């Protein structure tokens, strides 16, 4: 499946009334993104959480931030897809203007982006925001 944009995801998830369907949807989103090859999963791209690991490759292409991600856990991969939907192929200004915490709150998934969760998601968001900040200054 094609990765929907962030507003579509918000609408889709609002449609489900039980958590199982919501998580299944998130897992499917994770499967929809391509992930990284084993060679691309180098240590310098690794954001290590104590529960799961994520890898991030970020770059700027024609003034837009592009990134690829992967995780060893499928739900984390799905959550990364949510971040990708919001951030990938956007300008640094768009990224900085986007309310990521509000987005996760709207998805009723704040718990996963909270700094108390050792899943690396918060660190990925921080890295992309930092890249956006560097490129506008």
């Amino acid at each position, binding site marked *: 499946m094609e990765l929907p944009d962030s507003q579509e995801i918000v609408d889709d998830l609002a449609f489900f009334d039980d958590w*199982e369907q919501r998580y299944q949807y998130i*897992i499917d989103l994770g499967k929809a993104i391509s992930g990284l090859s084993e060679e691309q999963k180098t240590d310098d791209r690794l954001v290590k959480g*104590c*529960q799961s690991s994520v890898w991030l490759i970020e770059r700027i292409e024609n003034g837009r931030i592009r990134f690829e991600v992967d995780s060893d856990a*499928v739900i*984390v991969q799905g959550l990364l897809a949510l971040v990708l939907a919001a951030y990938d192929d956007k300008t640094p200004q768009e990224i900085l203007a986007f309310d990521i915490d509000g987005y996760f709150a709207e998805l009723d998934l704040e718990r996963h982006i909270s700094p108390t969760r050792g899943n690396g998601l918060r660190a990925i968001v921080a890295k992309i925001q930092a890249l956006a900040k560097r490129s506008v200054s």
Partner: protein
Amino acid sequence: MSFDVASLRKQFPILQREVDGKPLVYLDNAATTQKPQAVLDAIIDYYTTCNANVHRGAHQLSDEATRRYEKARDAVARFVNAAAREEIIWTSGTTEGINLVANGLAQLLKDTDEVVVTEMEHHANLVTWQQACKRAGASLKIAPIHDNGELDIEAFTALLSPATRLVAMPHVSNALGTVNPVKMLTAEAKKVDAWVLIDGAQGIAHGNVDVQDIGCDFYVFSGHKIFAPTGIGVLWGKRDVLQDWPVWLTGGEMIQDVTYQSATWGVLPNRLEAGTPNIAGAIGLAAALNWFSELDTRALQTHEKTLLTSAHEQAQAFEGLRMIGTAQDKIGVLSFLLEGAHPADVGFILDRQGIAIRTGDNCAQPLMKRLGIPGTARASFSIYNTLDEVDALFDALRKARTMLA
């Protein structure tokens, strides 16, 4: 069952709460235990009626606070069967206790000396010794385990030599649940005249710790693993060893005479307790130990065994589940992997069903590496868990398996 788990549960207010609209099933007891009302009351009562700094008794409140605080020390001494109350040193927890001993050790080690630990250590009982050895130029030796999570006793014994100054090992492994035969291992270490430290973080809550019987020199534990608050722990040490052990933290309370340029140290236990202590924590810990001691230990142990047996049986019958840690003598912990599912994903799906477990490296990265796994999902049981909760765990795991397949 010979004891009433339902009425025991009623003493733990937090066990009545819900998570996402489902009753909380708390199976993360190896990380921390919940607190009974008796402990909560003791802390509130202390702050409500006699909060004051201790050992500076110019007034009534300070006298009362000091009395409760020192009575707490007596309670701990009784609980672990210390030979003297001065052998009980308050710490902030297991980690600080190990650091206190390791810091002293680093000053005593020569570069030809060795320290022995095991492959099953969590970071607290590994990194501390590793760093102490590094500072002293001494060597750290790692006693291997078998694949089932039991210590390789032959290899352990072979590592011991006259160069061995200290042996540190867990009473019970946090990640695998393995119970080490600490008395026998201590006797082996004593043949080469080494000091022995037992990391009791996971051992203390399962009853019957008798430090004199074990024969070790140090036993450390955290209050919060035995129904007491966080931030309080205990280092027990033999008086002969502790009274000359190099001091670690310096400051108030631990001194005898002070000039601008020099100081002399006080006597045990104060010489190893600098600064204002965690008074409420100590009182809370004593309340927890007293509360725990009034329960029927044998019935508790039987109950815990029933829970683990049920968990094991269901785990064995569960398709695609691999148990990590299957030592003969094992308590409290079911570490496992679900085929094709990352432990973090299993944790997420269990959490949504109100079931709290630990996932990840279990604060034991080298052990996970040794076992060739990235981490585990770990359910850990305490006295207030029920067979229904064990069943709920496996129902939830069935759902996780379906969703993650």
